[in-house]
């Protein structure tokens, strides 16, 4: 929207004034405000300098330059409801126990800087950008200088923060020789071991740094990812990225458990993120877990799981329900009435077979019921598989846990061996990231590690 205005201005320069003066006078309101702010805060006159937007950003009062049409809807950037934004700073990173947003963009990076100083300055730049993005502000820097590309790419101008969260983690490869961090690698943290039936493709695996960006608006999420990629240019390159979605909260007034692309509810067995004690038990790394810099952080497991959509679509309802061990419509365990019923694992049908099949996904995933993880998956659709003409779609699985070794890996080993669902899915990608604890004001992402 603001881009359109700029375009109009650039297309209609005052014939006798030239580009420079058009630039100088094009936003009287905005500039007056800045002068006032500059004076009031005693910073002095920073017209046209990089500080001007710093002030605007710091006040939190503007999201984009005030336009020359006061009161236009583009301009209304104050009063963002609290429900729409999360604080970047805090004890834990957001995007982990945060209720899932509608959309996700995930980016995995390989660092091209060769030392810890380079890594540190990237993380500091990402910290500044993330704080702005989560507040719904334009990225700090030159956004009005006609002679420069704008600091913020602009596609989120005028949009609310849409509950955007940005979650950063370190991949196992970060702890090699390059950055002097080998000694800080947490015990038991590494790439996931091979599981039966894996069909991993290197282009969907690993990464030095992983960033999960979630928001209730796809454009806001993409804007976040894109600007982080841009800031990283020269320091890190994109290794792979994936967009994800789920049903939007607007389209589900009942706030039911979301369904995956197989049509089944996904996440029924998830522990409650409202239960702080449970989150300490399942998700947040505790001081006694070793690697002190990770205390308050969490380990992320990522699996890009392609569904054999065409095969699933032609499977009978009874096959589908026996595969999950649940009814498709209600989500209840087979033989039970309600979604959140525990399910009777001992129940047998008239022919003596277990009502909930021994190899059903729900039964195998639960195991002895002692180990939990916090699942935070999104569906993905990446167009067509050019080889087969079939859909490349499935589940972008993300889970958070205190320990990959004790929680995710044993669960996935069980599933890989006997889960009936394996007939319909294929694990294509895999990554793990040690997600840092939260950042306190004045600190930066990963400062406990560096």
């Amino acid at each position, binding site marked *: 929207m603001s881009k359109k205005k700029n375009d109009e201005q650039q297309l209609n320069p005052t014939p006798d004034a030239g580009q420079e003066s058009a630039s100088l006078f094009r936003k009287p309101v905005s500039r007056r405000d800045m002068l006032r702010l500059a004076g009031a805060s005693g910073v002095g006159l920073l017209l046209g300098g990089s500080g001007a937007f710093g002030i605007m950003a710091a006040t939190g009062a503007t999201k984009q330059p005030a336009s020359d049409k006061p009161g236009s809807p583009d301009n209304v950037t104050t009063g963002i409801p609290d429900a729409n934004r999360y604080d970047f700073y805090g004890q834990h990173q957001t995007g982990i126990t945060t209720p899932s947003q509608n959309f996700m963009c995930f980016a995995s990076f390989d660092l091209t800087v060769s030392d810890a100083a380079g890594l540190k300055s990237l993380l500091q730049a990402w910290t500044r950008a993330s704080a702005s993005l989560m507040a719904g502000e334009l990225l700090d820097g030159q956004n009005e200088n006609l002679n420069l590309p704008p600091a913020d790419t602009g596609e989120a101008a005028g949009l609310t923060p849409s509950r955007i969260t940005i979650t950063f983690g370190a991949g196992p490869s970060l702890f090699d020789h390059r950055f002097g961090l080998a000694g800080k690698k947490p015990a038991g943290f590494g790439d996931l071991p*091979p599981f*039966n*039936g*894996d*069909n991993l493709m290197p282009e969907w695996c690993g990464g030095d740094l992983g960033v999960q960006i979630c928001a209730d608006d796809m454009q806001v999420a993409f804007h976040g990812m894109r600007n982080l990629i841009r800031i990283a240019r020269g320091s890190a390159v994109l290794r792979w990225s994936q967009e994800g979605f789920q049903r939007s909260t607007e389209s589900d007034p009942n706030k039911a458990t979301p369904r995956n692309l197989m049509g089944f509810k996904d996440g029924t067995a998830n522990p409650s993120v409202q239960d702080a004690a449970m989150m300490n038990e399942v998700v947040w790394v505790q001081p006694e877990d070793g690697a002190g810099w990770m205390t308050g952080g969490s380990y992320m497991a990522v699996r890009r799981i392609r569904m*054999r959509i*065409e*095969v699933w*679509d*032609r*499977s*009978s309802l*009874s*096959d589908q329900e*026996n595969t999950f061990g649940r*009814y498709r*419509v*209600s989500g*209840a365990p087979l*033989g039970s*009435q309600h979604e959140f019923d525990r399910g009777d694992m001992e129940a047998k*049908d*008239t*022919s003596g077979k277990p009502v909930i099949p021994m190899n059903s996904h729900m039964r195998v995933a639960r195991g002895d019921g002692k180990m939990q993880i916090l699942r935070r998956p999104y569906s993905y659709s990446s167009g067509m598989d*050019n*080889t*087969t*003409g*079939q859909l490349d779609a499935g589940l972008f699985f993300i889970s958070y846990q205190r320990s990959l070794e004790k929680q995710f890996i044993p669960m996935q080993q069980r599933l890989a061996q006997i889960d009936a669902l394996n*007939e319909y899915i294929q694990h294509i990608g895999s990554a793990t990231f040690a997600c840092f604890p939260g950042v306190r004001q004045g600190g930066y992402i990963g400062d406990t590690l560096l």
Partner: protein
Amino acid sequence: MKARYTLPAVLLLSSVLFAACGNKEEAQPAANNTQTSPTTAAATDTKAAAPAASAADFKDATEQYRTYAISEIDAFVTETEKFTEAVKAGKMDEAKKLYAPARMHYERIEPIAEALGNLDPDIDARQGDVDDKDWRGFHKIEQGLWEKKTTDGMSEYADRLLQDAKLLRAKVETVDIDAGLLVTGAVELLNEVSSSKVTGEEERYSHTDLYDFVANVEGAQKIYEILKPNLAAKDPALEKQIGEKFEALNKELAPFATKDGGYVTYDKLSKEDVRTLSQNLDALAEPLSQMGTILGV
């Protein structure tokens, strides 16, 4: 394997479905179901009695299929024995020639093997499907012949493969073949193609995927032909549609046959060939999956 709803399960499922219809018109669908049908009592009876009644209807079909499956497994044991003997004798070329044709007998009746517990992975697992220490069967030997280019160390696997093939022959007598198994088996055969053969992942060393591809399709077509009278009685349009799609797929496969009765290796196929085969396969499998209609509700 499936599709045997017990009566309580049907009732429970129905009640769950209707409950999930939620607040609007909650009672109405249920009412429709039980009362607006002119032949309520008869319909309900048929529904409840369907599995029992149908067993007799399908007696011919299941017997025909049992005969077919046993003859394929007999041939499988015979051909596997020739193959394993060639492997043990170190006759590389002969073993390579016998490998894919022997497997075709297995691929035609694969759902039967899958119904027999661990036999399918023992005979047909690819590397990575099972723990490396447990990996044996055809693909282990395939790796030896084509990738490692040797029969050294393969004797043991050849012996076990033949044992497993004979075990399959013995166990097939115990499989409870019912119409449900036939219906799902036909689709599963095509799913096998969809999941691994069409991408060339099944025969990753020998590239003989087309042999498996053709055999899976033949196995599915056999089931379709056996069930054709039942299907024609129930849904003639569907019966016709499936027949046409089989024809279309077989036409797509025909150019890849070689003069010696075999098939070209999968790496000879262009990207377009693979995609066309895959799409024809999906076009067949979708109506084929509707064959369950003959089983009733």
